[in-house]
């Protein structure tokens, strides 16, 4: 990583351009591990553990509450078979999501990737929010895991809406599954409309450059598109929460990209991983890497002028700030995670 951004690897050291030292919370979580959130407001504890005399509560409840497999499978099946369920205009099917999709995601999240989340409560509990995260791992499982984290561990159990690029919608099955799990199309119209309706929208500004990058470039943030997400956030005055996701890179480490094959199939890249296409369909199984998802402090977007979104310089600046924050969190969490698999 000779040419990587110069970011201190030690989380307790001074961060670039900002001369302050951040101290970690002293509380112990219910799972017996030290809390990894930062202390706030001059105290020794983070927001969750809220000061010295607050009870030491779990950051991570043992049983996720949002995923609720149907209690009465028969009546569930009957209702589904009669079409007696509601979906929103974008095609989000809340019942299918919480009864079927979330429990399935949970298996990956809890058992397979053993994901730890940090600072999920920094995401505002109501109103529009834009999550901006790094994108990696050949197959965008990171978006799905992020969605699970928010639906399960956020105090308000917020449903995160993904926005998928064109390619997602061209694939059979994947497209309709994405819709039912709340995804919309990655375009300005859809993002604005979702935010207008007060939803949490996740954007991955790296796009295909992020998921399609090789193993050598792991955890190195790619270019952040054209900053369209900042324009939308400024226009709709939506707070941005930077999110770093560590672990997805190792789930599908892309050791090569077969360009001619990708071109022939009309794909942005054709990945070769240690198991794919060597082991055939079995190679689609992700490797059991260990993940950390960290939510950063929200960046408010309502202190700017009405036409701020047309100020290209400001848009680029803000885009860079978000990018820096994510990169810093990435480096810190990468260090903390230790081994990629155990």
């Amino acid at each position: 990583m000779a040419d990587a951004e110069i970011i201190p690897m030690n989380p307790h050291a001074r961060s670039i351009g900002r001369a302050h030292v951040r101290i970690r919370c002293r509380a112990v979580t219910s799972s017996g591990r030290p809390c990894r959130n930062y202390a706030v407001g001059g105290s020794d504890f983070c927001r969750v553990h809220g000061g010295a005399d607050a009870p030491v509560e779990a950051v991570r409840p043992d049983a996720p509450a949002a995923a609720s497999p149907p209690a009465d499978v028969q009546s569930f099946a009957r209702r589904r078979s009669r079409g007696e369920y509601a979906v929103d205009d974008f095609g989000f099917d809340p019942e299918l999501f919480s009864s079927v999709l979330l429990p399935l995601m949970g298996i990956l999240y809890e058992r397979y990737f053993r994901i730890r989340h940090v600072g999920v409560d920094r995401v505002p509990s109501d109103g529009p929010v834009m999550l901006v995260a790094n994108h990696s791992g050949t197959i965008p499982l990171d978006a799905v895991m992020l969605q699970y984290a928010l639906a399960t561990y956020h105090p308000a159990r917020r449903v995160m809406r993904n926005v998928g690029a064109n390619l997602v919608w061209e694939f059979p099955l994947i497209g309709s599954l994405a819709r039912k799990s709340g995804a919309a199309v990655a375009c300005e119209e859809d993002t604005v409309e979702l935010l207008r309706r007060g939803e949490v929208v996740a954007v991955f500004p790296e796009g295909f450059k992020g998921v399609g990058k090789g193993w050598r470039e792991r955890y190195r943030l790619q270019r952040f598109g054209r900053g369209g997400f900042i324009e939308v956030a400024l226009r709709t005055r939506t707070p941005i929460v930077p999110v770093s996701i560590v672990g997805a890179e190792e789930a599908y480490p892309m050791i090569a990209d077969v360009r001619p094959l990708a071109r022939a199939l009309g794909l942005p890249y054709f990945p070769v991983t240690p198991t794919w296409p060597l082991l055939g369909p079995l190679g689609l199984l992700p490797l059991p890497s260990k993940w950390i998802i960290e939510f950063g402090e929200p960046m408010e977007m309502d202190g700017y002028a009405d036409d701020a979104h047309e100020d290209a310089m400001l848009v680029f600046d803000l885009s860079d700030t978000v990018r820096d924050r994510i990169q810093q969190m990435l480096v810190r969490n990468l260090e903390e995670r230790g081994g990629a698999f155990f």
Partner: protein
Amino acid sequence: MAAMRRRILITGVSRFLGLRLAKRLEHEDVDVVGVDLDEPVVPVENMEFVRCDIRNPLIARVVEATKVDTIVHTNIASEPARLGGRAGMKENNVIGTMQLLAAAQRARRIRRVVVKSSTAVYGMQPGEPSIISEDHAAQQTDLRGYGRDCAEAETYVRDFGRRRPDVALVILRTQNVVGPTVRTSLAGYLSLPVIPTALGFDPRLQLLHEEDAVEALWLALDDDARGIFNIAGGGIVYLSQAIRILGRRRLPLLLPAAAVTADVLRRTGLVDFPVDQLNLIVHGRVVDIRRARERLGFVPRYDTRAALEDFRDNRDAATVQKPGSHPAWERELFEYLKNKVDQERERV
């Protein structure tokens, strides 16, 4: 002197929407002139029927002679079979609209033109916005068949608007219409006992109830109405969900096979489902209806689900032919035919 009685010309008056609008205006304080190739199956009171093909330049004489001040153009058709194939359909839709507007441009009395277009003008590609507003630039290059006709007709309407800025223009882009009585390709498709779908694709459907479609045309006659409006019921259902609500089975086919099936169904005349509308049952199409609510006062009585349920419940009743369960439109038709037969008998 009292204000001049309004005179409204309706094209396509023998087709569903035109006829229903004419019926709606029957007892209003307006004069209606109906234009079509065939006489309406149901007699309309207080309506002058003129048998005329809108493709024929004679339509200008009709517009002039009938002294109408409003034109409601409902004759852009989506079913090729009725118009002698795709070529005839295109003639009717595009050339017909051109001729009609050319006539309207000459006629100094014209104050208002209402054109029933369709949401098909948006086409539907996978990457389009999930909820399409009126300002969305349709990618005309992708359009085929009906959608293309509508888009071309709309450009002529806009040209007309530039040349006659004194005329109030309303374009209604209606979503797919279903209901107990209307016959559309989608209604035919959803009436199949086993409904072929594209494997792995489950489009969102947004529907417009036939009564709401008529209501929108009625609202477009209002003095303040002008502009382009999406007209649809609220909410959506998935195609898979719609098939379940209808209590039917679906037959998922690989996409190429689905295209072939659609073609076979069309050729055999089982369902007049043009292949260009196949995109609808692969990618779906949902439009934003806020503008119509805010500026046209259009509040659909049936949302998508209710429209579908009404289609299921009352269309079944109509096909089973239980006495007394016919919808008003068909009942009128039966009475009309019965009277005809009685008259014939008397003459003999």
